[in-house]
């Protein structure tokens, strides 16, 4: 490994492994969606893996993450098992949410993964409350909240920036600016090019980072986690990236310029990181082994999901209330 890298070979390989795991998972999800095995919709995070991986690698197991419907990557990056996440996408009883949540609602509290949400921006104040609980209980834990550029236009985003900064909670805002909210590009929705500027307005440390460079994201996240853990939060990270060719596996929308659909491939973080690893001395065979392991792991996850039972309609009324 290059002496210049601040990360150890093991750390770099971990980042690579998680990115490949998510990529393969999402490719399989798209395929299963095409086969009709995933009902409803599913939102791949292909092309954005560097962000969830870079950030979650800076967190400990007990630190908490909340994310959006485009959150399969965040779930896996936080340590959730691909098998129970895949089973959830297929709404099977073995899924992390017993098949109640589906693709947009993942959760595994044991991994500190407190849930993905399908209402844009609604989970941001929830993350604020989780971070406040850490502060009130004097637990040295950090909460990270992932959301998109579209979410940064919602009122709850601004409300939470204010409350989090006011109460100095250990929260990291992670904006995945992928240039689009469904079909609306940021130039039609954002008053200023950098969403990070908004956080500065609330007196917060706010950083813009290349979201397709996993090492850059990870180093920025490490610094942010360090700050937040020592009571100097909240911190804002805007990760610039490019969305996969469609909003969801389901969306049939068109771009004005069809070239837009190809854009993510030109900045794809995965081949880029691969190149970096190879050029700095990682053996190709080592990466190939990781690729192979991930393929096998996800194939097993798919098999597990497909073989798992669907919930019985008799269970519909169960669990509306605790008591």
């Amino acid at each position, binding site marked *: 490994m290059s002496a210049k890298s601040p990360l150890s070979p093991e750390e770099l390989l971990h980042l690579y492994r998680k990115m490949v795991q998510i990529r393969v998972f999402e490719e399989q999800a798209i395929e299963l969606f095409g086969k009709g095995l995933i009902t409803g919709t599913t939102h791949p995070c292909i092309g954005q893996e560097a962000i969830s991986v870079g950030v979650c690698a800076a967190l400990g197991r007990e630190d908490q993450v909340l994310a959006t419907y485009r959150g399969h990557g965040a779930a896996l990056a936080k340590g959730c098992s691909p098998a129970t996440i895949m089973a959830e996408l297929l709404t099977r009883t073995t*899924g992390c*949410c017993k098949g*109640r949540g589906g693709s947009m609602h993942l*959760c595994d509290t044991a991994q500190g993964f407190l849930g993905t949400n399908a209402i844009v921006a609604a989970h941001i104040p929830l993350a*604020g409350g*989780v971070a406040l609980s850490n502060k009130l209980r004097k637990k040295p834990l950090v909460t990270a909240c992932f959301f998109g550029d579209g979410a940064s236009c919602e009122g709850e985003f601004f409300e939470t920036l204010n*409350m989090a900064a006011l109460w100095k909670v250990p929260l990291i805002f992670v904006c995945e600016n992928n240039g689009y909210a469904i079909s609306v590009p940021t130039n039609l929705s954002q008053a200023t090019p950098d969403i990070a500027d908004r956080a500065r307005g609330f007196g917060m440390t706010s950083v813009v980072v290349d979201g397709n460079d996993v090492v850059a994201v990870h180093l920025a996240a490490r610094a942010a986690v360090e700050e937040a853990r020592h009571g100097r939060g909240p911190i804002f990270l805007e990760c610039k990236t490019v969305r996969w060719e469609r909003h969801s596996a389901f969306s049939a929308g068109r771009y004005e310029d069809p070239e837009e659909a190809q854009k993510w491939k030109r900045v794809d973080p995965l081949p880029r990181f691969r190149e970096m690893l190879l050029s700095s001395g990682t053996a190709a065979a080592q990466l190939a082994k990781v690729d192979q392991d991930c393929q096998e792991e996800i194939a097993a996850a798919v098999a597990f999901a497909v073989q798992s039972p669907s919930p019985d309609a008799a269970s519909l009324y169960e669990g509306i209330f605790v*008591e």
Partner: protein
Amino acid sequence: MRTLSMRDALNEALREEMRNQPELTLLGQDIGAYGGTFGVYKGLFDEFGPERVRDGPLCESATVGFGIGLAISGMRCVVELEFMDFTTVAMDQIVNQAAKLHYFLGGQVTVPLLIRTPIVSRMGMGPQHSQSLESWFMHVPGLKIAIPSNAYDAKGLMKTALRGLDPVLFIENVKLYGTSAEVPTEDYSIPFGKARTLREGTDVTVVALSGTVPEALAAAESAAQAGIQVEVVDPRTLNPLDDAGIAASLRKTGRLIIVHDAYRTCGVAAEISQRMMETAFDYLNAPIMRVTGLDVPVPSGALYQNVVPNRENLLQAIQSIVN
């Protein structure tokens, strides 16, 4: 036995549970040293301090969101929304988050959140400060709803709400805050889903909600002078609703009038009426009647008196249903 006002009974319930539960936290606006818009929090700030009796910014949506975040972290939270009209601003957090997280995350999180919201239907404060919107929330699965009409019930229901694990909307008509009832000094709680018969009668059942309960009792008194024995039943909670308790009274009297301040269309009366048709139709000696708020925006000033029901028009309804 001593008597307490409903305001003081609620204050006592909060105070006692704040003492019993060190992690119970109150969030809202004007709840600190000021003691709450209607004085329900008086003295709590002095006893428990600014961390636990937390005044915050004016943002109903994120305030409820933070409350949910505390709740899913295992810290019980009470959030105040100063007028029921303002629940509209926090609707997503109440309806899509608090009510559903436990269910769709497969039971992994619980939401021990209590939202207190006053109804100000009888003060002439105009169209944006006078609404009774309880039926909106009754429509949504996953929210418990308490709507007490007196000090005794208010304290007992508040205790149950503060000891359970489900989200509760606690609706209080400010007109009732100053009314007094006997409240034991010993600890007690009242289960949800149990209606209370406030006056026994044999000729007609009046199911009354919240601020209409004193009107119903007054109308019943007048009716008694005319030889009509009215049974007054207060459901006390809307979810769960004591269908069986209401039906039992209806079977006894054979006639049912439902009275509430809320708009007529899709009000709680419509739901209760339909449930009674489904369960006790054969016992009805007359069509079920509704005495409700009018389907108009509540004007400012004295004209509100013509919008919400009163003892006179309720008495007319009683007289007409027995004839």
